[in-house]
């Protein structure tokens, strides 16, 4: 993943930053809620 700095590539980089951040946030939320739901399921 080579970094880029100009023009259209800069727009592409910003899109990639947003996508990375959203993916990581989503992952953290899935672990958090998934974890609790899994335990509720195992106890019911």
């Amino acid at each position, binding site marked *: *993943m*080579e*970094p*880029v*700095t100009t023009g259209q590539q800069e727009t592409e*980089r910003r899109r*990639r*930053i947003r996508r*990375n*951040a959203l993916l*990581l*946030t989503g*992952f*953290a*939320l899935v*672990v*958090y*809620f998934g*974890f*609790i739901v899994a*335990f509720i399921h195992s*106890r019911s």
Partner: protein
Amino acid sequence: MADAHAAHDHAGHDDHHGPAKGFYQRWVKTTNHKDIGTMYMVFAGLMFFIGGAMAMVIRAELFKPGLQFVDPQFFNSMTTMHAIFMIFGGVMPAWVGLANWMIPMQVGAPDMALPRMNNFSFWILPFAFLLMLLSFFVPGGAPAGGWTLYPPLTVQGGNSLPMAIFAVHMMGISSIMGAINVIVTLMNMRAPGVTLLRMPLFCWTWLITAYLLILVMPVLAGAVTMLLTDHFFGTTFFSSAGGGDPVLYQHIFWFFGHPEVYILILPAFGIVSEIIPTFSRKPLFGYESMVYATASIGFLSFIVWAHHMFTVGMPLAGQLFFMLTTMLIAVPTGVKVFNWSATMWKGSITFEPPMLFAVAFLFLFTIGGFSGLMLAIVPADFQYHDTYFVVAHFHYVLVPGAIFSIMAGVYYWLPKWTGHMYNMKLAKWHFWLSTIFINVLFFPQHFLGLAGMPRRIPDYSTQFAEWNMVSSIGGFGFGLSQLLFPLAIWQCVKGGERAADRVWEGAHGLEWELPSPAPYHTWESPPSAEVVARGTIGH
């Protein structure tokens, strides 16, 4: 270096590029990575002193047998809050502060990838810790069940439980946002030519730390949420009365807790890997093996958690698995210690304060590592568990490990941040006093633990009196000598001999291609291929 200066001359003439005026605009609303890094560091420093004051209460109470100063409930609050303040308020924010300051400068990026989130992740923290402090004033006092918040003890506590749980959630959210920022920055903001395997080790160790954070902080948040529902909403996740299992909590907690230990120490490995080559005037020995060793330690940290709880009982196969995987960690750690030693071998070494702290790290962290190996042996752990031997072990790993490395990092980069050299004599006094007293403080705790003194008790049998007194004297000495640290920093911020751009003769890295003090905005234009080649040549 001319390229770097030329890039910043432009910024210097543009009034819009300086810091905003007024406290609110400059500090509360800032999105500048250096400002946010500074706030994190100042906050961490404050938390170190609050957590340190709690440690002084603990050592004062343990100075001699009998109950002297505080009642047992308050003593338990002190041990609990000392840990929470030092881990979540001191070490972790200090690392995030250093990451904020250095990562963009080291990879040739103008700022962190998500600057507004960066601001938010910092400003959550003061509220989280204010809430923790306020819990001292509610009926029942602050949490006193240990930083692990084990049920059923914790859920039997006073009104502070929901405050602590909300505060832990806020700390977790802050850490996760900080980790996302680091990952996204390192993956997307590196200047052309700064490939992953040309990144400084501090960036590499932080990248792996950030992944650990994202993987485990939600687990801790999930565990404490279940504690909350057990306490207030009638669930029985961890209550055997309703079919739950308190040992389950311990598994979940340590699934977070062990990687957490590496979250605290991996960035220290990165800093030491920056400092030792600089002051040995040699490239780091085995750069790539350092990266792979860090990644291996990160991976192994997920499969060793139950070594914290051998004594709760588990099948023999489980004991063997967790014992052997724990011992396996010694392999990549040994690679690191070997590489640091090999870097110094036949180097042209000088002992400025950052190097002194880094060398002390190498010796003392290794002592902590060895006592960790002893604790990994199941039958031996049955003897050592919950004794002062464990306290000695993890303090050797965390104080001369994590905290000395933070100090080393501050002494290493402070001239770059402020543009001034600090008082070397004062910094060396700080080092020698810290190093002597830390050993007086923690080494006797090995003897106490082996003799059977349990952790988390305000009173003890008279057979433990002598070494406790020695340990307390070391504690007071260490605590007092830490006052030299803010003094040295304050003097350096206010003035002093002008620092060169490449502050240390043997330093390599893009941050040393920038002027000292580093301008408010750096690398607005990416560094040229020539600057990148020079700035990353040390690898």
